[in-house]
Every structure is written in C-alpha cells, then in structure tokens.
C-alpha cells in the first residue's frame, strides 16, 4: 500500500545516491517539485531516464546530480536547446555525462517491456539510422517465425520512478488523465515509485471504467504537492507555462544565471512554493 507522506519523506526514503531514476510525463504532468526535492536533498551520481529530458533534467544535469542519462529527445520543446545538457556533453560541465540515446519508439517499448517483466523490447526500428553505431544497447533479434530482423533494446527497470498525477484518494490510489504518456509503464517497471498529486480526495471517482488508475498497492509513496508539475501542466488544473519554457532559454544559457536561479527557486525554496502555480493553497509542510 502506498504511504501518503510529505515530499521530503518520499524522496528521502526512496531515492538513493547512484540510483537509476525515471521522472516521466510526456510534456504533461512532469514532476518538477519532486525533481527539485531531489536536488535539495543533494542526491548524486544518478542515472537519469526520461524520453524527453525537458527543463527538469536540464536542472538536474546543471547542478551535477547526474552521472548519466538515457533519453530520446533532449531539447526545450518548441524553443531550442537544453543549454545545461549541451554544456555537459560538449564541455563536461559541471561533470561528464554518460549518454545512452534511443528513439521515442524504442524508449516507449522499453518501458512497456519493463512493466511486462520482460528482459528486452523489440520493434521495427532504427532502420538505416546511425544510433545503433554509437549505442551498444541497440541490438537486433531474428523473428523465429518469419526470420525478419528486428531491433532490440533492454527493458527499462528503474530503481525508482517519479511521476505527477491529478489526484489520489486517501488510500493512495492514483488517477491520471489527459496525455498519459508512459507514466503507467514507468511506474510498473520500477522497484519503487513516488507519485505527487494536485489533490487528495475522499473518493477517487474515475470518470470512466477505462480510466488510467494506478492502485495503491502498485505505488510506494504519494505526496500532496499542488502545482507540482509547473511549468509543465496538469490537465484540468492549470495550463503549460509556455512563457516559462521560452524564458528558460536565457536563464540556462549562462552558468551563473542558471546557478542563481537554482539557488533562489530550488535550494532556498520548498514544495509548498509550487502551490501558487495551481492557484490554490499549499499542502501542509508536515
């Protein structure tokens, strides 16, 4: 059964130095508040997994929390580069970053294989592309029935997956709506999981019998963090701050302005500061 705890407890209990950590959310429901708590608690040597690293992993890479990253598209969507990611790859600042690069299709299949408790995923992919030449984790298998050659990649099995969702009930059952991405697969593929939510409600009341629900017994910890997906968004609660994504380009371009932003908005801040983005009241600190 999921424990309903503060974000500081959830991260403290479940994210360890050196862990393979997946923070998912495909543009939508990106767990920013939880990522900031990981930075505040000084976790290091993390191997980060995420299809689209987005600004959140730019921040984790920029503070030096990551030893490596597995990903499939490392940009600021619609804006341009992730400057902290680029600085790490191009100039090894603040530390070298080992990268394992895939396509979206391969990452999505690899999460699904992890959730299905399979050792690898296969897909009709990477045909004629150069990534298999630079990534030893892209191999091939031959279909035993047709002899077709298919791409194979290892299943993703994170030590811990962190996601954000709309709401949970008091037992810790979680409801996800809108662009659901790979969150369900990422949680089910992981040893431990943390879900931050906009609201904790008396009745989960899924809107359809086919709603995406993660039952309490498949989740490790749930934390109430209103606004916790900002500057991404929570369908039904608040929109994506495209202005923040555009503004991040200037903040992250320069090492000093990045570090100053992290100090003010992460190190000297807390999960309760996200509530203003949700237009609601912050969760209690304890």
């Amino acid at each position, binding site marked *: 059964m999921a424990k309903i705890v503060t974000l500081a407890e959830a991260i403290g209990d479940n994210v360890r130095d050196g862990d393979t950590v997946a923070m998912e959310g495909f543009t939508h429901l990106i767990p920013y508040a939880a990522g900031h708590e990981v930075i505040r608690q000084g976790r290091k040597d993390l191997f980060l997994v995420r299809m689209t690293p987005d600004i959140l992993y730019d921040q984790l890479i920029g503070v030096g929390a990551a030893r490596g990253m597995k990903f499939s598209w490392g940009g600021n969507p619609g804006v341009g580069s992730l400057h902290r990611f680029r600085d790490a790859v191009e100039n090894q600042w603040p530390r070298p970053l080992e990268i394992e690069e895939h396509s979206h299709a391969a990452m999505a299949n690899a999460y699904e294989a992890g959730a299905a408790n399979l050792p690898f995923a296969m897909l009709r992919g990477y045909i004629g592309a150069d990534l298999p030449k630079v990534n030893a984790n892209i191999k091939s298998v031959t279909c035993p029935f047709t002899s077709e050659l298919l791409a194979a990649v290892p299943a993703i099995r994170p030590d811990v997956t962190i996601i954000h969702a709309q709401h949970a009930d008091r037992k810790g059952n979680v409801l996800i709506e809108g662009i659901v*991405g790979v969150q369900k697969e990422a949680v089910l593929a992981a040893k431990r999981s943390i879900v931050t939510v906009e609201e904790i409600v008396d009745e989960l009341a899924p809107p359809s019998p086919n709603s995406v629900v993660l039952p309490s017994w498949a989740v490790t910890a749930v934390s109430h963090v209103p606004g916790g997906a900002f500057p991404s968004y929570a369908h039904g609660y608040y929109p994506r701050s495209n*202005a923040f994504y555009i503004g991040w380009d200037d*903040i992250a371009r320069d090492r000093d302005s990045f570090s100053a932003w992290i100090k003010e908005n992460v190190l000297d801040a807390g999960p309760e500061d996200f509530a203003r983005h949700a237009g609601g009241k912050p969760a209690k600190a304890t």
Partner: protein
Amino acid sequence: MTDFTPTEMMTIAASRELSNDDVCFVGIGAPSAACNVARLTHAPDITLIYESGTVGTRPDVLPLSIGDGELCDTALFTVSVPEMFRYWLQGGRITTGFLGGAQIDKFANLNTTVVGPYDHPKVRLPGGGGAPEIASNCGRIFITMALSKRGFVEKLPFITSMGHGEGGDHRERLGMKTKGPTRIITDLCILEPDPTTKELTVVSIHDGVTREQIVDNCGWPIKFADQVIATPVPSEVELTTLRDINARTKKAHQGDREAA
C-alpha cells in the same frame, strides 16, 4: 496576392501537399503550422496525430510542444505513448509523416543529433525523438525546412533518420515497404527525389525566386528537373488563415506572464 514572406510561402506550399484523406503524424514547428493551415483551408477532415498520443486533434492555436494541453483538449481521443508508437505508427495506420530537421542531404536523410563527432560533438542537437521510426513506418514522408548551405549539406555528420539512404533502391534493400520522403518543401522551391537515383531535384520554384538563388543556398550541386513549374502564389484565404493562426499562437504563448 503578392505580399508574402518566403517562410509564409513555404508553410502554405507545404499545406497544399495534404488532403482530407491523410492520417498525418505531425512534427513540431513548421510541419505543425502547415498541417493546421491545411486543416483550416482545403482539408477540414484531415486526421492530425501528434506523438504525445493525441489523435484527430484540432488546435485553435499552434502548440509550442508536441504535448500542449490544446492538443488533448481538441483531440478525438488520446492514447498512451507506447500505444501511439506500437499500434498506430508501427501498425502502419499513418499515411503521411511530416518532419523538419536541422540538416538534410541529397538523398533526404536527416540529422537532428550532432554536428561533429558523436562522442565529442561541436554542437549537441536534441536528437531523433520519434523521427527514426516515423521515417520508416509512415506511408510517405514530407519534409519542410528553409533552404540554406548549413542545412542542405553534401554529407551528414550523423544520420538520425533515413530517407533514401545511399539512393536508388536502398530502402527496398533494407526491407522497407514505405515510400520515404516524396516532397521537400523549402522557402525557395519544392524538391522531389529523382524516380531512379532518388537524388533530390527541384520541381517547382516559388514566385520571385531565381535558379541562382537556389544553387547558392544549397550545399551540393543541386539538379533541376526537366520540367520545372512555378509554385502558385498564396491565395488570400491561405495567407489570412496562416497569419491568423500565427497571431493567435503568439498571443497565447506569451500570454501567460507567470514566467521565470
């Protein structure tokens, strides 16, 4: 109408490639603008799909990311990302993929990964995202990007997604049954692969553009088809539709002042 920019011409020419019957996997940026202009003008029933899982979406403003809430709010339905790539894309349900890129070569292979060596890149670009499998699994591919020497290069440092590979029947030799890139729409002209060699060849030139301009802006000695036509200029409806959606988009993206 004669007063239009090269970028507007590019977007409108790209939009004309699409029809009501298309099920189109839409890349972000220029492809997204072209696909939505098509939907708002001559192809109101086109099915637009974004890789975030939104199917049959009808956005009122162009998304900044492939997963803006607007896409989900206006979609017929939204699926998970594994379902999108497995059932709909790999399943062969998508007629047309619409891509952009940082660099392209004469066989329409695309690079959005690195400039310079992969291990020590001079410029680290975002990477492939959905493109490697979009390029192989969609029935055909349209590409839209501005013609420039930096973008249209003789040799790519990295092939992120395969177009026609080394040319000729390279796709068939690798077992692909899809057509690959069939039209490349730039701000100066439209290119098509030669039916045999698959080398990109100019087939249509936009209004007011000279052959010299095209040659000067391409990184390889570009060829012209025997029959080159003049691209029709944008109609008033096309131009108004594009400008209106761009204006709505700009207002929406900069509207939320809750920034840094």
